[in-house]
């Protein structure tokens, strides 16, 4: 039975990469599909040229072609991965971390209510903004210089979710410029909660989720022997 040569296999991979099928799982799946389809065709007629058979099989992907398959996969699985991350983060909140978190929030509320509360608030805001912007720039730099590579769609979603910190980058300076009145307890409670979630989200998006990337991957893909 006629099999694909190494050069023919490379041709298939090159076409997949030209069509931006860069995620390894999707690339492997489509490579396997084309390989099976071409080798099956050769079982019927081994004299058919590789180019001709590959072209016929490629046309079967319809008018939207491979980019259509990629787009649909990104749409379906991105939402799913976000749910996986949310579940992962909620699992983090176990005893004694819940008690520790409540302690931190209460400590912030009492600190803001002190006479020096406004200065602590401004210091925390500056620290948060500097750290978050620096982390995001570092992430973009590592991505651009391929120090952090995106192998699977999961890696892309991990990379993209870190930019959701932009929400807190926008919200927190609103309070900074408004110079909040901490005499009202509700203001201290609100800002303490916002800071807690901002720093917590920072921790999850820049550290905890990337650290558990392999755990998410193994939950998703079972590797058979």
């Amino acid at each position, binding site marked *: 039975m006629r099999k694909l040569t190494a050069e023919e296999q490379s041709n298939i991979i090159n076409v997949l990469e030209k069509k931006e099928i860069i995620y390894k799982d999707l690339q492997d*799946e489509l490579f396997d*599909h084309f390989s*099976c389809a071409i080798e099956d065709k050769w079982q019927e007629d081994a004299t058919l040229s590789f180019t001709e058979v590959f072209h016929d099989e490629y046309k079967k992907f319809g008018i939207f072609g491979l980019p259509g398959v990629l787009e*649909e996969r990104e749409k379906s699985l991105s939402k*799913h991965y976000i749910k996986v991350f949310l579940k992962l983060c909620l699992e983090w909140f176990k005893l004694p971390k819940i008690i520790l978190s409540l302690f931190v929030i209460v400590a912030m509320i009492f600190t803001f209510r002190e006479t020096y509360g406004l200065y602590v608030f401004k210091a925390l805001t500056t620290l948060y903004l500097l750290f978050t912007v620096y982390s995001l720039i570092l992430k973009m730099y590592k991505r651009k210089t391929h120090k952090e590579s995106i192998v699977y769609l999961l890696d892309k979603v991990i990379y993209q979710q870190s930019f959701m910190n932009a929400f807190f980058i926008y919200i927190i300076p609103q309070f900074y410029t408004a110079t909040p009145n901490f005499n009202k307890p509700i203001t201290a409670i609100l800002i303490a909660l916002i800071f807690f979630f901002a720093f917590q989200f920072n921790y999850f998006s820049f550290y905890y989720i990337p650290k558990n990337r392999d755990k998410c991957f193994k939950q998703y893909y*079972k590797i058979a022997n």
Partner: protein
Amino acid sequence: MNKKLYKGSLQTIILKLLEKEEKMYGYQICKAVKEMSNNEIKITEGALYPTLHKLEANEIIEVELKKVEGRTRKYYKLTEKGIEETVNKTEELKAFIENMQIFLNPNPKLI
């Protein structure tokens, strides 16, 4: 064969195949549908893979990777949620067919 008639049934076809075969890969599913229907139904790859990925995202099917002849092959199999969904989809399709029968074999008194 009018492809639009089969478009809405693609998920049900895939789930029924996986119910029967336990696990299958994408090309195998395409080929099985073609052979079982005597070439009457041909699933386009552009429709098959998005459907499989959608089922994967909804946790109706799960994935197993296996090395075969130097390639990584992605097998799909039903989850527990998928087994229930297969029953639901089958019932829906049966009800659809029964309702269409009313129009294909109408009661003469009604016309």
